[in-house]
């Protein structure tokens, strides 16, 4: 086997591991990671194959991470698949509300893309407060309902969805103490909890149940830094946003 063919085999093995959800880095699959780091041909081949499959591979803090990028019809999720992945099977407005909550979480960790975040943990209670603040700000927009009548994908719908949720559901623990219920999707606190569960499943955050808080995972940091800091990726994203506006493509 020629050297290039051998390297092609290594590159596809790395891709295979990543697609199977196995880590490739300094601490696991080290042999493959070393090949990627030390042999430019392996790196180039991997980049070429992944580009053809519309996926991005990032090397962040000595580990490789994979992202399906935007609007990936092969490896991306459809809206229906995302709804099913949410713990309680979300409907359309709940899914968009979940997006809103996730976006709030991202902005709580990062104001703008950077190598790392200074925020070590966020309490779920604080997410609830921040989402409520954002919803209030939206509600107070004078022209929100005016604009909303013109567009089918408007924020008024998620504001009213949020408003329809009760603040919290109280339950009693075994010792008879009153506490907030963590489960369900019909109250604000459990809803945020369900969104955090989804983000944990996507390896973006880690939930600390004891501390009732979330911590950012390496994959989350990798995507913020490598995807959003990259000019081409950013332009691709802006293009899609523009297309949304001109209704050129249904996404």
């Amino acid at each position, binding site marked *: 086997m020629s050297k290039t063919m051998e390297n092609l085999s290594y590159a596809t093995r790395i891709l295979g591991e990543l697609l199977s959800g196995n880590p490739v880095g300094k601490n696991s699959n080290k042999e493959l990671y070393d090949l990627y780091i030390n042999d430019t041909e392996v790196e180039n081949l991997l980049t070429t194959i992944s580009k053809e499959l519309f996926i991005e591979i990032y090397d962040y803090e000595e580990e490789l991470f994979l992202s399906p990028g935007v609007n990936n019809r092969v490896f991306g999720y459809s809206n229906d698949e995302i709804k099913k992945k949410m713990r309680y099977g979300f409907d359309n407005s709940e899914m968009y509300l979940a997006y809103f909550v996730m976006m709030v979480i991202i902005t709580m960790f990062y104001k703008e893309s950077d190598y790392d975040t200074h925020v070590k943990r966020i309490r779920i209670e604080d997410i609830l407060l921040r989402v409520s603040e954002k919803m209030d700000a939206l509600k107070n927009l004078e022209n929100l309902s005016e604009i909303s009548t013109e567009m089918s994908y408007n924020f008024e719908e998620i504001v009213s969805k949020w408003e329809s949720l009760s603040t919290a559901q109280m339950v009693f623990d075994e010792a008879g103490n009153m506490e907030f219920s963590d489960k369900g999707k019909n109250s604000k606190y459990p809803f945020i909890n369900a969104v955090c569960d989804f983000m944990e499943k996507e390896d973006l955050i880690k939930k600390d149940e004891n501390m009732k808080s979330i911590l950012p995972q390496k994959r989350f940091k990798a995507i913020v830094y490598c995807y959003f800091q990259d000019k081409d990726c950013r332009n691709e994203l802006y293009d899609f946003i523009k297309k949304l506006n001109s209704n050129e493509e249904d*996404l």
Partner: protein
Amino acid sequence: MEHIEKITSEIDSRIKNIKIYHPFYSIYAEGYKDSNFDMPSLILAVLSYLVYEGKLNAKGISFNEIKEFIRLFLMKGYAYDIDDKQSIDLTREVINKLDANYSYKYQSCNTKREETLNVSLIKEDIKTLEFFITTDGLDFFLKTKEYSEEAQITISLLLFKKQLEAGSFGYALDLVRRLNIEVQKRIEEKSTILNIVVNGGSNGIDEYKKYFDRIAGQFSQEETVFKDTLKFLDDFYKNEIEQNKMGKKDKEGLKILSNIEEELLKAQSLHTRLIDEVLDMSNDYDRILDIKMKSAFSEKFNFERVFEQGCVEYNDIRVLGLILQPFLNRNIKKRFSIQKIFQPQKVKKAEERKTEKYESPEVSSIETIDMLTQKRVENNYFAYTAMLLNLLSSKPCVYLEDFVSYIKETYSDDVVFNVDFVPFLARINHTSRDKYNPYKKVIDIKELFMKDINLMNDIEVCLRKVMGQNKKYSSWDSIIIESLPDSDVVFDDIIKVTNMKFVLV
């Protein structure tokens, strides 16, 4: 003004040296509502626990271990007993304070601009969710009792040598242990320095150089002292043991010496690790500088701005969906493969099948909007009732304002605008209309539990449900609900409600 040059040049390093005190005094300034103990002391106690139990044993400490420690510390230190719920809440609060990122901002005399120093006292391992003291935390902790940082290692080493010579083996053992903490601190300092290199502008390069100088200085000091110590130990063994000159005291000393030897072996392996880490550090340093170079010339993606734009300009929720797509995992759609039927299949044993039970499919009813609304109202009424009773358990006479402040504090200020809140107040006010006194109603708890649930109103059902679930309400006799028509309560200048008084009897 002859010292002006020197003073100006020293200010930055003086600020850096005191940054480790910033978290402690921030916590002190915040204060703490519970007067039964002192929060700053508790913070110091938890840090000590993380050093003795965690750092010295090279292991992380779990939330539950910290919780148990806090409970024992309050008991021992303040004779203050707390239950499990209180200790969970307190542990969360203590960890949140210790784990927070404290930013110390100052105007630098060197760079002539505002600089930020970030300090946090503990960190959490994202995989194990265990807690560790940080280098800054350890630095701060050592300065609360031990020697000043600059001379710490040198003084420790000299003392160690002197104490061995004087036969104070116990103290010498303590010192060598402390030395090991110091070496461990140096190892972990690496990540702090790299963090400064990532975030600290030009400061990072200075810190990186200083770190190398410190390590080199430490190695040369230790080389001399350890050489002398080994010579001393060698002589001791030759003179005292081989010539059988040992008394009872000497034999005890020998035991401590063997512990010292053990600690010195630990010190040796720690030093080897330190050398490895320092060698690795130069690679990390180059890598970070490379990233910084790239970052300096690349435009950043402003999440906050795009979020606002998505909301206001486009008014299109799908913008959020697009931004989130890169964050999601790859999606592999699995399909059934016809070849699978030719693969060996695992056949279940007959007896396993016997245990399987047929479950009849549940008949699901469709939940209408009315049913959902009813459920929401019930949940909210239940929560408000539980909050009211909880407040009454701590304060036997409560006015509507107290109740509102309490729930605002628990939930948020906008709780009064919840669609179910005002109706709840109206319902509870209605409950208070008695035929003899239209403004007062006495709810007899025993009677409440005797009454047929179908004849109760929704507030009575909530009261019974809440009281039935918590034993602490079992001793209550009655609750008086009185409406005060002459006084009104205004919430945030928008909602006006007749005042009420709730009295526990």
